[in-house]
């Protein structure tokens, strides 16, 4: 499977407890509470809730994603432990990992178009949503083009030596730039052909388990306020 496909497919294939726009609101609200709160109990609760949800959604993908922040977090916490003491290091690490887990939950369970659809309902200006959707679609297509170019170059030993890698990268960048210009022109024609006048439809799933999302959010809020 291609790299970008894998990244894009995570939220599509993941098992979701909460569905629809409410999933985005739930994640964003929890993220804000986790980041703003300075109580370790809130961070621990947030970590417990969202790590469980991520494990339920797709535990392999979650562990795979977790490797990246941990690679930064562990050495940083170690340094902080030496400089400011174990309590501060543990507090910072817990806060960072809990906030990251909430973000991973959002990434793993909500495809980008659904995130923008939910944000549009929160009165995010339509033109921002429209631009984001078009850019996202353009990235999808250009990524596919890049994968094809890369495969074609690889099949003809384009990456066989350091010198070849450099030369191939130059060619690929040039070709991709030209393709992106052509793509912009074609995309414009495709939109014109379907009567474009600045409207981009949005897509969101039917809400599911709204009560559970509300309950978990209330728990976090209570932990923060009490």
């Amino acid at each position, binding site marked *: 499977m291609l790299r970008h*496909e894998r990244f894009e497919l995570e939220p599509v294939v993941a098992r979701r407890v909460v569905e629809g726009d409410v999933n985005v609101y739930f994640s964003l609200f929890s993220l804000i509470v986790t980041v703003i709160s300075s109580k370790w109990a809130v961070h621990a609760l947030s970590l417990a809730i969202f790590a469980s949800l991520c494990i339920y959604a797709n535990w392999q993908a979650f562990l795979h994603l977790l490797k990246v922040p941990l690679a930064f977090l562990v050495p940083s916490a170690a340094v902080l432990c030496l400089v400011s003491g174990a309590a501060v290091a543990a507090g910072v690490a817990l806060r960072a990992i809990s906030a990251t887990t909430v973000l991973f939950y959002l990434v793993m369970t909500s495809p980008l178009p659904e995130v923008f659809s939910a944000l549009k309902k929160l009165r995010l200006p339509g033109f921002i949503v429209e631009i984001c959707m078009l850019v996202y679609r353009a990235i999808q297509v250009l990524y596919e083009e890049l994968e094809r170019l890369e495969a074609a170059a690889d099949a003809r030993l384009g990456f066989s030596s350091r010198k070849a890698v450099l030369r191939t990268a130059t060619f690929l960048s040039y070709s991709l730039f030209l393709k992106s210009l052509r793509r912009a022109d074609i995309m414009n024609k495709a939109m014109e052909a379907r009567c474009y006048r600045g409207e981009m439809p949005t897509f969101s799933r039917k809400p599911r388990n709204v009560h559970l999302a509300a309950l978990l959010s209330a728990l976090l809020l209570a932990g923060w306020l009490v």
Partner: protein
Amino acid sequence: MMECRDVWYRYPSGVEALRGVNLRVEDGEVKILLGRNGAGKTTLMLTLNGLLKPQRGEVVIDGRRVEYDRRSLRWLRRRVGYVFQNPDDQIVAPTVFQDVAFGLKNLGFDDGEIKRRVGEILRELELQGYEGRLCSTLSGGEKRRVALAGVLVMEPRYLLLDEPSAGLDGVGFKSLVSLIQRLKARGKTLLISTHDLELAMAVGDSFAVMNGGRIVHEGEINAEIAEKYGLRFGCFRG
């Protein structure tokens, strides 16, 4: 009726793609536009949809000469739907639902009607359940159906299909033929650009051959014509 009268088009690069094209597509017919690569078929289709403005000549739809102001183009594109040769060129939105709903949303339909129409067309093209799928994760055949759905959902009276059989396997080809026949039965008028004579023979009512930016032949197609204008003519061989 869809008609081109002495249409000329030259690209900014200097290539003269259309050189005095006269073509008429009668209501309810499936007209096949044949020709080699670079013959001008796609340019002619872009002209019929108002995406290109001819330097000379005129395009007439339902007896009305096409004008190129915003309002007239909106009128034109509601009547004449254009399906691009490469579905990736046509798909502009990230998910299937968004892309199929794109035209309707821009025509000002309300969300309930959009949902109903999108659901219907996805069912017809065997894409039900694909609403939330990301277009980048679809197969070539699925993308082609999404591209078709995005145009058919707008219910245009005239349909321009640019090389619709390119890259289709046997099953995809059969369902394309069946879809074209269904559209024809519903009274749609189709202009299909192709160099696939098998498709042409399966669905065509009348034929026109383009070469060098001109219509060089109208009428029946036989092995001699196919050979003369560089068409693949496997279906004429024993």
